[in-house]
């Protein structure tokens, strides 16, 4: 079971890499922030061998693809109601003028087939309505238990065709108290398939992904002290990485086999670099005040972090060697939890004003800051989506801490969790 799952993920990662190579050249044409969305129509998928069970599969796949593409902010989905104004969709005789008439530029059709051995085969065909041409088609298959993965993979391929970075098969790791104790959980990017990872019965904090997405770094109090551990998802093995002092906020280097984290092992919270091959530690900050919450820039050449050296917690950036330290936040008296957008142009962080925590995004290019959340309790621990158009964070805006997704411009707030209290999400980088 685990092997199948693992090999599927390896396959997906391989597919992601190979398809991304293709799409790189196309990035330029399509979309930038503010560019109008591509209008697409996705009529209900056709179904070979109709049955109640099979039509249920078909509906799940359609809804998942629909939700993925709507979430992307790349497409504008023509509402289903509009499809009734035109002739009923017929795969063998597509009337492109009809689809153009309801303002669809792209038509995505799909067929769901349940083959022998209860295997789902999902095929998509993508058409350009204006030139009335077939653009491309792809098949996706697997057991019904992977139905959401099959759907997300199809959405990924569609998104990639339009030159975008795909992320519908990525996962989010977080901490939940739903079983009475702070434990580590993972879920799909859309909040589905939430499942528990650790069973320690101690407090667990601030989990984050390794760059290969096969390991989770987190802090656990299993020995009555905040020690740093690494959990291997596919073997179940747990490794102790740091146990002297308080060890938190591990972040894996974008390419190399090393992490940064915060530790008080020398008597004060400082930032350390750990070579994951040799286990060697290198101290990066030397300061009598608190230095914590380090985060790699996507290039791996810089590290953002929180420091109290100016009298209050502020966001700073240093070079990867610990040199050339400069302050980023100018206003306000309390900032923490910085994270870089995947393209390295923006930095999100939490700012406390009158005991409310809100998310702010600083743009390096324009030297401007925007406020992402507004007057709604405490919003904490933001993490970027792999494409930089979305962020996930924890908020107690409705009483208990839950995870929410919000877009880069403060739109499309979506609540992703509801059981127990949930906090500190970390989204896979790819």
């Amino acid at each position, binding site marked *: 079971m685990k092997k199948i799952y693992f090999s599927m993920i390896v396959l997906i990662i391989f597919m992601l890499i190979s398809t991304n190579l293709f799409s790189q050249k196309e990035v330029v044409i399509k979309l930038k922030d503010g560019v109008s969305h591509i209008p697409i129509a996705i009529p209900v998928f056709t179904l070979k061998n109709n049955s109640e069970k099979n039509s249920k599969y078909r509906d799940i796949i359609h809804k998942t693809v629909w939700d993925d593409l709507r979430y992307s902010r790349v497409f504008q989905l023509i509402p289903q109601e509009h499809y009734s104004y035109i002739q009923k969709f017929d795969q063998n005789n597509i009337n492109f003028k009809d689809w153009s008439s309801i303002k669809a530029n792209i038509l995505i059709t799909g067929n769901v087939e349940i083959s022998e051995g209860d295997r789902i085969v999902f095929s998509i065909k993508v058409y350009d309505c204006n030139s009335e041409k077939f653009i491309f088609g792809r098949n996706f298959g697997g057991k019904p238990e992977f139905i959401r993965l099959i759907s997300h993979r199809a959405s990924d391929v569609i998104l990639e065709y339009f030159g975008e970075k795909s992320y519908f098969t990525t996962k989010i790791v977080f901490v939940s108290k739903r079983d009475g104790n*702070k434990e580590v959980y993972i879920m799909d990017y859309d909040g589905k398939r939430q499942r528990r990872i650790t069973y320690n019965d101690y*407090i667990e*904090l*601030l989990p984050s992904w390794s760059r290969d997405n096969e390991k989770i770094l987190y802090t656990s*109090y299993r020995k*009555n*002290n*905040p020690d740093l551990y690494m959990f291997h998802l596919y073997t179940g093995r747990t490794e102790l990485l740091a146990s002297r*002092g*308080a060890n*938190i*906020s591990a972040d894996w280097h974008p390419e190399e086999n090393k992490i940064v984290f*915060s530790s*008080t092992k020398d*008597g*004060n*919270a400082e930032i350390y670099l750990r070579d994951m091959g040799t286990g060697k530690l290198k101290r990066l900050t030397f300061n009598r005040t*608190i230095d*914590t*919450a380090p985060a790699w820039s996507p290039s791996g050449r810089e590290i953002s972090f*929180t420091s109290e050296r100016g009298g209050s*917690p502020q966001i700073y950036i240093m070079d990867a060697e610990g040199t050339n330290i400069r302050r980023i936040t100018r206003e306000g008296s*309390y900032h*923490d*939890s910085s994270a870089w957008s995947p393209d390295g142009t923006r930095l999100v962080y*939490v700012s*406390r004003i009158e*005991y409310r*925590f809100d998310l702010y995004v600083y743009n390096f290019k324009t030297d401007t800051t925007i406020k992402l959340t507004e007057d709604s309790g*405490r919003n*904490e*621990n933001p993490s970027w989506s792999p494409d930089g158009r979305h962020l996930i964070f924890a908020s107690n805006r409705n009483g208990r801490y839950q995870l929410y997704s919000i877009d880069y411009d403060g739109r499309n707030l979506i609540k992703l969790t509801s059981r127990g209290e949930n*906090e*500190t999400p970390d989204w896979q980088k790819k």
Partner: protein
Amino acid sequence: MKKLIIIGILTLSLLVFFTACGKKVKTEPVEKPVVKEVVEKVVKAEKPELTEEEIFAKKSLDEINSEGHLKEVYFDFDKYVVREDAKSVLQANSEWLISHSSIGFVVEGNCDERGTIEYNIALGEKRASNVKKYLVSLGVPANRVKITSYGKSKPVVKGVDEASHQKNRRADFRIVKK
């Protein structure tokens, strides 16, 4: 040896009791006091041998911790300096610690919820660290004190008012060695 005597007396008395059963009731009151006296004597003999230290040694760590010998101290919002009102508490704590020289303990720093998870871990650690420094300045050997921080993940009160926040901005003491 004493035990053997008691068992002997007990079995003897039982034998007498059973043989006496059905005969005369009068024999009973004669036998009973004998047993009582012996038991009392044994207890009396053991009690003086237990010193205060020995009683202490018999207790579990949980029992000692629940007796609250070491009082928690509180901090100002966003601050980690040892407050004036905390100093007298720490003075009392240090006296108890000095008179109980075998005790090893952990100072646990805690924060209220109005801080981020990351910063609060560091802040709680600073609070614990300053408490340790103050205790050491009062003569508690540094090697008996460990520190840790729970940040905001171990509140004692759930409330959102200042009184609740104040209760959560604290350093606790947990005895781990006696």
